[in-house]
């Protein structure tokens, strides 16, 4: 009962300075929105990447020459396949295509699939020459539908016509936005790539715990190769998003700093009015604990409200409204940028950390400066 009465008084005293309180609340909420957006988005993308790519190739073997990525001889697939523990080594053909018409980069991928239909593909996978399947982003930017024609300029600077046999569904945009899939033979011709070379090798390993051993053996068998295990690949995503999150936080660090300065200013200088008020409260019979409780409520009332509002807002921004604030920063120069609507993977630990790191310092910065005034005798406080 006493506690709630003191909360009532704390709210009344916050409302006595409505403009200041509103300003703090708005700035604080915005800060939480930014922090929470970055944390939610990076965590969700990271988790999604790990979950989606879990069925990718266990091992990718690339060849490097003079520090650069080189095409790998198809014959190397046999060498790798002969390594004990390897169940298959498949040469992959893929590469990039700059579309001067739209200014976008496409990723061209050679796929010889036995089964032409895919759940996330409207239509079918291309089966022969002059056919291709494209991602939703490519379809949108080139304004083509299934069975339409798509003209690309090949390595000989000659226009090649492809019939779109399938478009990847929007749900798979995070994976397929810029993809252009066709069988390997026509893709080689399109790129002008000799038939005995491939971009890299996708290797499947029988026992997942042996991937590192196999990678070591590949490195020994093909000294100029660079094996990349799936574990490393997923770790890259962890690093990438941590880094990106950190980068965004750095961008907003100035805002954060400004807020800290404000909090510090508030913390270090208890205004004469506030000091006098504490003296009055003590003189009329408030205990030190009552005064400190009052200050704690004042801090908590603002910070809890700001946290809850800010987090809810950030949640909506990230998972429902496509992160419009960060989208601009994240998009960069990408012409084909999939709509950011990640699956809501939320880390409760992260939420708790954010709450702790935003609420506690603020409450402390309101309570601690009041401490000294609250513990001295009231007549001394009022005298000053």
């Amino acid at each position, binding site marked *: 009962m006493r506690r709630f009465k003191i909360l*009532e008084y704390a709210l009344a005293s916050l409302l*006595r300075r409505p403009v200041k309180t509103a300003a703090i609340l708005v700035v604080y909420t915005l800060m939480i929105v930014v922090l929470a957006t970055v944390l939610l988005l990076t965590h969700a993308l990271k988790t999604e990447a790990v979950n989606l790519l879990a069925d990718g190739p266990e091992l990718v073997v690339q060849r490097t020459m003079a520090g650069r990525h080189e095409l790998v001889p198809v014959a190397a697939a046999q060498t790798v396949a002969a390594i004990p523990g390897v169940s298959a080594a498949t040469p992959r053909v893929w590469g990039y295509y700059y579309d001067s018409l739209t200014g976008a980069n496409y990723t061209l991928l050679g796929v010889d699939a036995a089964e032409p239909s895919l759940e996330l593909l409207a239509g079918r996978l291309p089966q022969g020459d002059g056919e291709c399947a494209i991602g939703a982003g490519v379809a949108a930017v080139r304004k083509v539908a299934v069975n339409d024609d798509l003209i690309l300029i090949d390595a000989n600077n000659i226009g090649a016509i492809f019939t779109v046999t399938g478009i990847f569904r929007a749900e798979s945009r995070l994976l397929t936005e810029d993809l252009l899939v066709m069988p390997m033979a026509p893709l080689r011709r399109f790129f002008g790539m000799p038939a005995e070379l491939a971009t890299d090798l996708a290797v499947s390993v029988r026992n997942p715990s042996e991937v590192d051993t196999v990678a070591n053996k590949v490195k020994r068998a093909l000294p100029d190769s660079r094996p990349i295990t799936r574990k490393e690949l997923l770790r890259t995503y962890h690093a990438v998003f941590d880094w990106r999150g950190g980068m965004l936080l750095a961008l907003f660090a100035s805002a954060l700093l400004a807020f800290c300065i404000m909090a510090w200013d508030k913390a270090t200088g208890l205004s004469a009015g506030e000091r006098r008020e504490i003296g009055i*409260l003590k003189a009329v019979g408030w*205990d*030190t604990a*009552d005064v400190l409780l009052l200050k704690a409520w004042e801090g908590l009332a603002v910070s809890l409200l700001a946290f809850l509002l800010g987090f809810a807002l950030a949640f909506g921004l990230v998972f429902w409204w496509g992160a419009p604030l960060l989208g601009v920063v994240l998009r960069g120069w990408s012409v084909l940028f999939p709509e950011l609507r990640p699956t809501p993977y939320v880390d409760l630990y992260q939420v708790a950390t954010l709450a702790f790191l935003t609420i506690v310092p603020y409450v402390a910065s309101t309570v601690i400066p009041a401490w000294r005034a609250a513990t001295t005798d*009231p007549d001394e406080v*009022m005298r000053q």
Partner: protein
Amino acid sequence: MTPLICLDDVRKTYHPRRPDAVEAVAGISLRINAGEAVALCGPSGSGKTSLLTLIGCMARPTSGRVTVAGEEVSRLPERFLTLVRRRTFGFVFQQYHLIPELSVRDNVMLPLYPEALGAGEMARRAAAALDEVELAQMATRRVAHLSGGEQQRVAIARAMVNRPRVLIADEPTAHLDSRLSVELLDRFAALKRAGLTLVVATHDPLVCAHPLIDRTVRLRDGRLDGDAAT
């Protein structure tokens, strides 16, 4: 009859062990009985206010003993001292010390927050106290918009809201003209008739000579300069 408030060789030094140390109260012994009205008279700087804060448990003496209702308070831990202050004393400060941005009612309710009272009871008590000082119709006005005399009545209502045994007033007539001063002293007289103990610090001869005052204690340089029944 044991006195309600008992001071034994009480001293109060501000900024002790510093070159600007001031001994505001230099060894005062004083007894105040329940129901008595005592005036502390003396020129400014004679230690009246410091003595009031010691009597009212707002500050602790540097040495000596303060006893309230038979209990020694000068060595009590802060928490209990606060309780004694809240339950036994009501203060009317010279500068009133109201919170200007709050309404009259909210100011009067301040001493009730730490008590185990419901919101309804708090409002009832505040209304009753405001009734006593004839300010019921101004309950929702902000204190900053009130005149000096009205502010003092708010301060009296706040002092009385906890039904204290002792009312302590510091220079109550300092900011009042003679008509308002008489009105105030009549109000004090009524409170005294209701059984309240009054301790008033003043250098106003009007107060010292008023029939409600039972005893005048004269102070000079922090020492007693005379203690006489009037």
